[in-house]
């Protein structure tokens, strides 16, 4: 049921046109951060205001929306954004990755492979990959224009000098089609390989920082590395304790006061559908039984 007091998908038409123009320019220059006039949204900065504005500009009444927060459909952020669009746009919602036409995500890429008929919208806190190396916006803008990314490689090199390996484990910088260095948002580097050659359109919205950028389908995305220290999309050395999956990104959960812990899929839909299909892990229960 749409709340009649709001325009379709909450934002006014003038705002949506402005965001839509920014999205189209972002698509035309993959990896480049397009400034846009981010609006105040009825949620605080840091709760996905950029992603929400991009989603609002893209939604059509026929869409089926999925929202995840760190892979989970049932956390506060995901639940409230889903209900926000269900009320202001009247769109259908789902928790199943395969059934969604538009997925808004905070910090994960779903395990289930995406298709050409889907759009993935990322919530981005800090869109500028060089920001912690160079705080001045005019300088980082110049560095992008000159393709001057030496500083980023120095940072990765210092990681290796200090830790023996590149210690960045999320927010791992990538290079898009050999041109722009881009911040993939704080997804684990485990997800980085899924950015490249993805059949779905990927859009990134940073509300507080007022930037939109994009990866068109099948765009080549390379995680930055060195010849002698190639990129390693690391993963916890366990299987999921609920569904037994050996190839998914895992969360570590403390389960008692005696050092007990378990590893579970961060993607709740992936884990649930595997258990529904009869898979069970070390602590898991087969389909139909209460966990």
């Amino acid at each position, binding site marked *: 049921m749409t709340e009649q007091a709001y325009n379709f998908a909450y934002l006014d038409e003038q705002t949506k046109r402005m965001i*839509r123009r920014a999205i189209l320019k972002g698509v035309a220059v993959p990896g480049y951060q397009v400034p846009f006039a981010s609006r105040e949204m009825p949620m605080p900065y840091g709760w996905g205001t950029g992603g929400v504005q991009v989603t609002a500009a893209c939604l059509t009444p026929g869409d089926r929306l999925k929202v995840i927060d760190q892979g989970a459909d049932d956390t506060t952020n995901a639940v409230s954004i889903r209900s926000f669009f269900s009320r202001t746009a009247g769109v259908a919602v789902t928790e199943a990755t395969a059934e969604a036409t538009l997925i808004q995500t905070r910090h994960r890429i779903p395990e289930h492979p995406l298709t050409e008929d889907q759009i993935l919208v990322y919530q981005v806190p800090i869109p500028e990959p060089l920001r912690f190396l160079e705080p001045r916006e005019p300088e980082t803008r110049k560095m992008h224009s000159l393709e001057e990314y030496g500083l980023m490689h120095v940072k990765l090199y210092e990681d290796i000098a200090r830790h023996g390996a590149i210690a960045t484990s999320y927010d791992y910088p990538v290079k898009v089609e050999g041109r722009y260095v881009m911040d993939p948002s704080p997804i684990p580097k485990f997800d980085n390989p899924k950015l490249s050659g993805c059949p779905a359109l990927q859009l990134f919205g940073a509300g507080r920082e007022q930037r939109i950028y994009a990866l*068109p389908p099948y765009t080549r995305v390379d995680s930055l590395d060195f010849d002698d220290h190639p990129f390693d999309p690391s993963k916890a050395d366990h299987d999921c304790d609920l569904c037994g999956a050996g190839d998914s990104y895992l969360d570590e959960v403390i389960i008692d006061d005696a050092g007990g812990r378990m590893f579970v899929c961060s993607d709740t839909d992936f884990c649930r559908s595997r258990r529904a299909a009869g898979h069970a892990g070390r602590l898991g229960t087969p389909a139909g039984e209460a966990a």
Partner: protein
Amino acid sequence: MASALTAETLGGGFDDAPIQSARAFRAALDAMARPGRIQVIGGAVPPAPLSVAAGTLLLTLADGTTPVHLAGDADCDALRGWITFHTAAPLVPAEAAVFAVGRWTDLLPLARFATGTPEYPDRAATLIVEMPVLEAKGSVLAGPGIRDRARLTLPDPDAFRANHALFPLGFDAFLTCGSRVAGLPRSTRVEDV
């Protein structure tokens, strides 16, 4: 040159702007994100000679903040009045345009259009090129948004090669024909056949 308010000027807009512009934008986004794939778009009924697709793109994307350039035939009283009434977009010469619409030969020379600056490549014009035919055959396209290769009828492949050579600067184009639209961003490589 005050044009009278006629039914032609006042009509032909969206009946339900939020929904129709949302659908039209998704088609335009798909077109720009997958160069060579032709989308069908509609909702607007602009006066001649503008196509339904070009008119719908303008209603979806243009407003008082986006100067529009009308090239050749498109620069007629009926269209000036229609665009002004429905979008409030200022009508300007090519050099100042955010959107430019017209037939390919009328849009030349392309050097007049903004291609962005090295620090703000997004500040580039979007051309809406009215085509006599638009089909998924002809020139071979590759690049972001295209899995292997795509094909599209282009007005002048060399002009798009030159535009791609400016990347990350350059203009972006929608090619329109009737209610059909295809996107051709500056990131697309036009290959030699």
